[in-house]
């Protein structure tokens, strides 16, 4: 570690965003914090608290509608806000590296990894000459954990996994050995095992290369394990800041305490309990010997190895079953096959009533052109149980009430709702069809911890009050512990373990389960 004072000092930063008309909205209010040389600083807070805006302001990547009203940002003692746009651009990649949330499309798909990274060096031909470039990129690829950098150099991004892409992006951000690396939720779209390895990589880079890291996250456990200090933001201002140990142990403000409760899914405070089936409950979903594969080829249908095979499971009324497994183990394929979105190549799925699903991305799951009322009507129409006109409104009110929304939301459009509210609309659309099982495929992962807690509470309440069975696909073991009585663990397309949640988590029998639990302990 190199400790030579502060690498970054943000003092009295005020920023506002104008939305065309009226008074500009103040987004950052008198924000002050600093990052010491060689440390990892965690920046936490709910969605909309201004974390990302802060990072973009430091990087100088703000859009034109945002204006800095006052304050200073000192990087290595130089005020960034006094520099010209050209000078600030020059700093990007050289002194400040940034990695973002979702690595899936963050590399140009038309160019190889090598040429994606080469642009960092080619625009600095005065610093790095042409011959050195390839050598330097290969070394960096090795540093970020690729065993065969030569091979990765020539690969196209679509042939990399999400974790590998994030590694490439980290390599790009670190190529010029910057003083500060801004990591804006770098692991939130990755599965736990991959996320943990990315976190470890960042930690190593901080230790070995002396890069200071601003780590933005809403995952408090990750922050706790990897950050030296933590700054808590709420509504554009710092309300708590301390070493991560103290923040997590004794939060000074009630807001931080609430963040912790939500993030840790404190089941007692939130009132969530696992959903068990009663003794005489009937089976609502039976799956036996289910296999599925993605067929390729147009005329001659080539046989591809099955994505999932030999899946047997049973869900009873009122039961809440968790489904876990690392990325690519076939969880989503199983969900799609259950729903009939992918034809099963063998095996059967039988259910007493319809199945309904809530998916991961609340933004693209709803049609932006229509109101919530339209969405509910559509769901009702598809359920095959049309109601008379006068029955519709009470039914809509009831389901909205059940998911914690209001009648006023009926006339709203998706863009007027928050991520959590949209996800609740998706749940309401499920409920109106009165399904036997609600299948939720990672319904929380795109949300911040407060919205997550609220969605989990909603699902759990529906599970208990309506007795609707649930299949929850997730990589968050906290969620599983909080609401699932039974657990299914998948690995490489097969079920490797299933049984009571407690039993499996306390005494894992397979390597796959152990790896998932270990990754979860690191809290990423």
């Amino acid at each position, binding site marked *: 570690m190199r400790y030579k004072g502060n690498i970054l000092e943000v003092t009295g930063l005020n920023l506002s965003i104008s939305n065309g008309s009226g008074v500009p909205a103040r987004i950052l209010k008198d924000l002050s914090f600093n990052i010491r040389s060689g440390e990892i600083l965690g920046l936490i807070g709910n969605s909309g608290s201004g974390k990302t805006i802060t990072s973009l302001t430091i*990087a100088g*990547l703000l859009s034109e509608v945002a204006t800095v009203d006052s304050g200073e940002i000192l990087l290595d003692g130089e005020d960034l806000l006094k520099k010209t746009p050209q000078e600030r*651009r*020059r*700093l*990007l*990649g*050289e002194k400040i*590296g*940034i990695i*973002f949330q*979702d690595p*899936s*499309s*963050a*590399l*140009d*798909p*038309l*160019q190889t990894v090598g040429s*994606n990274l080469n*642009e*960092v060096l080619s*625009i*600095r031909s005065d610093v790095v000459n042409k011959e050195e470039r390839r050598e330097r990129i290969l070394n960096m690829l090795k540093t970020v954990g690729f065993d065969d950098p030569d091979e990765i150099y020539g690969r*196209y991004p*679509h*042939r990399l996994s999400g974790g590998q892409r994030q590694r490439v*992006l980290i390599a*790009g*951000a670190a190529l010029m050995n910057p003083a500060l690396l801004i990591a804006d939720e770098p692991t939130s779209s990755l599965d736990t095992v991959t996320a943990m390895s990315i976190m470890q990589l960042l930690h190593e880079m901080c230790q070995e290369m002396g890069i200071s890291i601003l780590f933005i996250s809403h995952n408090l456990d990750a922050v706790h394990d990897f950050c030296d200090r933590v700054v808590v933001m709420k509504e554009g201002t710092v309300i708590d800041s301390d070493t991560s140990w103290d923040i997590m142990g004794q939060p000074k403000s009630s807001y931080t305490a609430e963040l912790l409760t939500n993030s840790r899914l404190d089941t007692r405070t939130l009132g969530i309990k696992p959903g068990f089936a009663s003794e005489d409950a009937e089976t609502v979903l039976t799956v036996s010997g289910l296999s599925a594969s993605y067929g*390729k080829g147009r005329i001659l249908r080539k046989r591809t190895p099955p994505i999932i095979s030999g899946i047997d499971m049973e869900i009873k009324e009122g039961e809440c079953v968790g489904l876990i497994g690392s990325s690519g183990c076939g969880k989503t394929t199983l969900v799609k096959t259950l729903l009939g979105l992918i034809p099963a190549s063998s095996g059967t799925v039988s259910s007493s009533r319809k199945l309904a699903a809530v998916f991961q991305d609340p933004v693209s799951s709803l049609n932006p052109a229509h109101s919530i009322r339209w969405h509910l009507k559509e769901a009702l129409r598809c359920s095959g149980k049309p109601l008379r006109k006068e029955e519709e409104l009470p039914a809509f009110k009831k389901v909205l009430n059940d998911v914690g929304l209001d009648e006023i939301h009926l006339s709203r459009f998706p863009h007027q709702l928050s991520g959590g509210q949209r996800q609740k609309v998706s749940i309401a659309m499920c409920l109106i069809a009165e399904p036997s099982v609600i299948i939720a495929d990672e319904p929380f992962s795109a949300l911040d911890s407060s919205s997550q807690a609220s969605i989990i509470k909603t699902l759990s309440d529906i599970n208990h009050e309506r007795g609707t069975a649930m299949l929850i696909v997730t990589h968050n073991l906290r969620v599983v512990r909080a609401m699932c009585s039974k657990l299914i663990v998948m690995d490489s397309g097969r079920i490797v373990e299933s049984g009571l949640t407690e039993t499996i988590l306390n005494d894992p029998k397979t390597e796959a389960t152990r790896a998932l639990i270990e990754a979860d302990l690191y809290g990423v």
Partner: protein
Amino acid sequence: MGNRVKFAAGKLCEFLLTALLVSFFTFAAFSIIPGDAARVMLGTTATEEQVEHLRTELGLNEPLAQRYVSWLTSAMRGDFGKSLAFSEPVSELISSRLPVTLGMSLIALIIVIVVSFPFAAVCSRRPGKFTDRALSAAGHILFAIPPFALSMMLIILFTRVFGIVAVGQYARPSDDFGKFLSCLILPAFCIALPKIAMTFKFLRASMIEYSASDFARTSKSHGLTDFMILIKHIIPNSAVSSITVISLVLSDIMGGSLIVEQVFNLPGLGRLLLAAISRRDFPLLSGIVFYLALMTVVLYFMSDMIAALIDPRIRDRRTS
């Protein structure tokens, strides 16, 4: 490299199959036209004997499948029979007219690409601002003018007002290539203008989309200027997504050239086609239609290949 070869081979098979289907449908279309082709050609005054003679000469008495096979085998040698109206081999007639239509289409395509890419790039930089709105409005107006009306307006403008281009003159490419090209430019421009609007609109939208993409943001965080991001990432990516549109535009352009040739009095395929229709010259007609259909298929084949050449995902999608 293996992937590329595999991809190209797959596409080539697809292309050949499509071409075969096109040839069959073209042939079939002319065979199921109601009425006796021989009778229609000879008119009402012909005797039964003359009609029967022509039927035998044209092979109309044989079954459809057999006629198709013999037509196809000679077509593959470039022999589409003899034109009834011109008493010349169909293939010679077509090949003498092809340079005009093809040349005009290619010039039009170049104009479309050269104009719409920079304009789209300019507009996508600041969508919704004055330049963007003005150019988009101009595009809408151009899009609304049919090529033949535009042709006449341009003819008047250039000959009467400027007096620059000699309209209605034509030189064969073998005689004077420069003059051949110069007499194609104005008609090509007339066909291109409405298509520029279409291509421009599509490119603008896709460039705006790619400007907001994650990889553009990554490049920005690497310290690249907006212009470098445009050249390095946004234009290549929009080019891939616009290839389909451009190939549609090109087949539209070829269709448009058939009309514009009339206005500019150029000896292209369009005029030949009209002559064939009005004189009921079936061998010539089927030859031209087959040629045009085949060119469209070739066009799609080429656009697929170009897309695959630029975009590695397309190659992999087919072969993995």
